[in-house]
């Protein structure tokens, strides 16, 4: 899909990240938009959404996202209060050491990475996630 500022509700895009089949855009006012394939939950949506052709906003209004990064089929979101959220392909434990399945997020339900508090930076490799703490 070809997207423009119109697709992100008129908000300007500060940062962009791409997986192999999905994209994330971080806009001004710290709102994240996602589009592409959601076959592993990488868009941060529920199982019912197989994919999104146009960008859709994620999370509730009180979530201020600072950094975004994409792996092949997973996504990482770092909030201003130094919390890390991961979703998507989890076969090789990219998102969660405890879970045995891929991580899907509802717009309501958020899965926080318990070991990751005071996270200051995050970057995803194709099949892995790296983060640094304070």
């Amino acid at each position: 899909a070809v997207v423009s500022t119109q697709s992100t509700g008129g908000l300007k895009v500060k940062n962009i990240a791409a997986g192999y089949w999905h994209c994330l855009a971080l806009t001004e006012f710290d709102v994240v938009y996602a589009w592409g394939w959601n076959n592993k939950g990488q868009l941060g949506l529920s199982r019912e959404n197989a994919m999104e052709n146009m960008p859709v906003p994620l999370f509730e209004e009180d979530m201020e996202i600072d950094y975004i990064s994409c792996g092949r089929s997973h996504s990482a979101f770092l909030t201003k209060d130094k919390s890390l959220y991961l979703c998507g392909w989890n076969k090789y434990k990219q998102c969660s050491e405890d879970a045995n399945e891929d991580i899907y997020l509802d717009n309501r339900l958020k899965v926080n990475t318990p070991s990751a508090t005071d996270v200051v930076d995050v970057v995803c490799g194709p099949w892995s996630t790296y983060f640094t703490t304070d």
Partner: protein
Amino acid sequence: MLFCHKKYDSHRLIEVFEKGTCFYSQENAFHQRFVEFFCSKEKFIFDCVLASTIKCLQKYQDDRKEVENQTNINQCEILIDFAWEKINIGHWKDVDVFWRKLYRIISFIKCVNLYISGGVIDAIKSCDMGLIMGAPIREELFTHEAADVISLGLSKEYTNIHVPTKRYVIPPRSLNIKEVPSINSPSLQYFMELLEPGTPFVMKNIISHWPAIKKWSPEFLRSKHGCRTVPVEIGSSYVSEHWSQKLMTLDEYISDYILSKSDSIAYLAQYELFKHITRLKEDISPLDYCAVSNSEVVTNCWFGPEGTVSPLHHDHYQNLFCQVYGYKRFIMYDRADDMHPHQHHLLKNTSQVDVESPTVTEEFPDMKEKVAWVVELGPGDVLYVPLHWWHHVRSLSVSFSVSFWWK
């Protein structure tokens, strides 16, 4: 633990496993290409998995009991996931065949490991994924044979219960309908004469000797080949927005979409089933008539419930369409007729005209004069659809057909 599959450990299957793993570990040309695409670490994984599989297979034969080898299976999955990625990025035409060969090889190796650890159903699923997504090395058939022998072992008994009941849909009365002529068992020479005018005709009594005519039914396929995975189209027609493809076993397909009423239509259409499930090839035989030209013949299967519709379109092949089970109705138009094809480059061979619509001649007034060749096919009938002729096909019951395409 009671090892119930011993009966089906046919000598043949173990032989295929052994021959296949040896063959792949000695394919130097492939190994050289492997190193071009991967670094030495992945090559090390690949070599280890092959060697370990050969060892585990030997242990399985010596000890005559299941061999635990989850590490091998995990390593296979890593290579499969990697190959799958490469196959699904960019345009399929640009995907190097190396990735599809790797996918086929590792699916086979994974199958061996799954089978000897007791996972027979997963083993055959792995073979089928390798057959659907992968490519062979120099036309070898190890994966085909392994799958065919395993499925023999999983065969069940059955009784033919389902009788195809015809629901005839009358074409709009405003169409200018002509009946397609039928000929009884023409000789090869007569067939060549029949081809000359370039118009459709039906041949009767030329496939009555096919074992498929007596054997095939939904129950037969489900019981003898139910564990096989196939790609099924979901949606009312391939031009619809909600059309998609899904992989499922023949058992799931037949239970959910053929033998029971479903909300959505599913259709196993235009699939080279006999290249995949090679045992089914024994139930049909190639038509001598296709040999009139020296071209390659593409054999497709068309297996679906009542009500499948292929909208009016034309193909780049001559077509001998063999009806094996159930009933189908064809509406055909001359290749020279303007059928208002779609503009989109992917749909240039598909007409915008819905020939079954009661208002068709209001939407497209020129349809009133054009001659609509209409025929209903039953088991044993073979229809000749000339090159580039427009055809609309509707199944009038559960239907299984085999088409031979040539040029």
